[in-house]
């Protein structure tokens, strides 16, 4: 690897740098670069959605239209997958989508930290979804929610095999949900840094080629940033739907 001889490792960008040393009840809650980018993300979302819709005009400006399109995008997604029951969860799904999307986008800014590339963050978000939908399932169906693992219309001798598979697939939901986002962000950002190392390490003008590749890859990464936020939101919607409709 070209960067091996350099001081920088492609994984250095994921290093957490504390800006302060704060403790609360014996726990370390230092303000770090990760916290900073979370705050930037939240600030961007709240300011954008508030300021662009401030005129509340019937004929929207371009920026107001962007906010309305995002609103409609998630509202449509939720009503397509969950139906009328989904309206209650709209603020949560919308917040989740915007948080992941803008978090990914903030991460695309050079020198900015990508908090969605940390497994603990994505796992926490996935755990909220998983625990929330499981509680919702039990609240809606009580003990009958366990019949979720029982697939009707299958020969009876298949059940000893299928029920454990269903249970495992259900329990692995938070892992797949969090690892998908984490791994995509990790891989994309690492690849960008590896090729950036090539640009510096290659002799003469040949460094232009990896540079061109980086430009293209940045476009792809922006697509992936959106796509992963969309996947996170749509899977959340599907899990909410499962909590309402058993097989």
């Amino acid at each position, binding site marked *: 690897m070209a960067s091996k001889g350099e001081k920088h490792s492609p*994984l250095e960008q*994921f*290093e*957490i740098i*504390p800006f302060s040393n704060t403790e*609360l009840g014996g*726990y*370390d*809650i*230092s*303000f*770090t670069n*990760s*916290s900073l980018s*979370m*705050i930037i*993300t*939240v600030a961007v*979302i*709240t300011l954008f*959605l*508030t300021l662009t*819709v401030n005129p*509340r*005009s*019937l004929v*929207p400006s371009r920026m*107001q239209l962007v*906010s*309305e399109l995002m*609103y*409609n995008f998630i509202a449509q997604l939720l009503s397509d997958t969950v139906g009328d029951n989904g309206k209650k969860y*709209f*603020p*949560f799904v*919308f*917040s989740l989508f*915007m*948080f992941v999307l803008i978090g990914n986008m903030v991460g695309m800014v050079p020198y900015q930290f990508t*908090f969605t*590339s*940390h*497994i*603990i*963050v994505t796992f*926490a*978000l996935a755990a909220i979804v998983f625990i929330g939908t499981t509680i919702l399932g039990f609240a809606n169906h009580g003990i009958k929610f366990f019949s979720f693992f029982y697939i009707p219309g299958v020969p009876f001798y298949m059940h000893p095999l299928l029920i454990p598979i269903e249970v495992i697939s259900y329990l692995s939901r938070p892992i797949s949900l969090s690892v998908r986002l*984490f791994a995509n962000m*990790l891989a994309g950002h690492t690849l960008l840094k590896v090729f950036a190392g090539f640009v510096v390490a290659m002799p003469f003008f040949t460094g232009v080629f990896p540079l061109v590749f980086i430009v293209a890859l940045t476009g792809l990464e922006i697509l992936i940033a959106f796509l992963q936020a969309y996947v996170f939101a749509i899977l959340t919607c599907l899990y909410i739907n499962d909590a309402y409709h058993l097989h």
Partner: protein
Amino acid sequence: MPQLNPEFFVTQLFWLVVTFSFLLVFLWRISLPRIGNVLEKREKKINEDLTAAKKLQAEAEKIQDIIETQLQQARSDASEMIKTTSTSLQDKAQVELTKLEKGLDAKIGESHEAIEKSKNESVAQIQSQINEITKLTLSKVASFEVSDDEIKNAIASSERSIN
């Protein structure tokens, strides 16, 4: 890999909870209702405009229908009028013609009668003059006195033989 270093797990979780909760509450309470209101207001306005347009269109169609029926009515009235006028004119002309014909017939008949009468008169006059002349001639030529009846009979018999 820095991601697997548990040293910073707690602080990341703490800040995640803080920022995400703030975002959720802010969007739920402030941003989303605003956008929802704007969208609702727009939808309402569009629906109102659409219903108003539909109403106006229906009215226009109604007016169009009225105009159409009135035109139809006027056309049929006009043709009816033309028909009645032409038939009444024809009737009147017929009446005048028959009246004229009758008058002419009467006049022709009168003339016929007058001609017949004058002819008869003339014939009678000629007859009497012939009688007179015959009488005179006879008396002058043969100093022969003949009664009027005899002359009449003679003339009538000669007339018969001529005819």
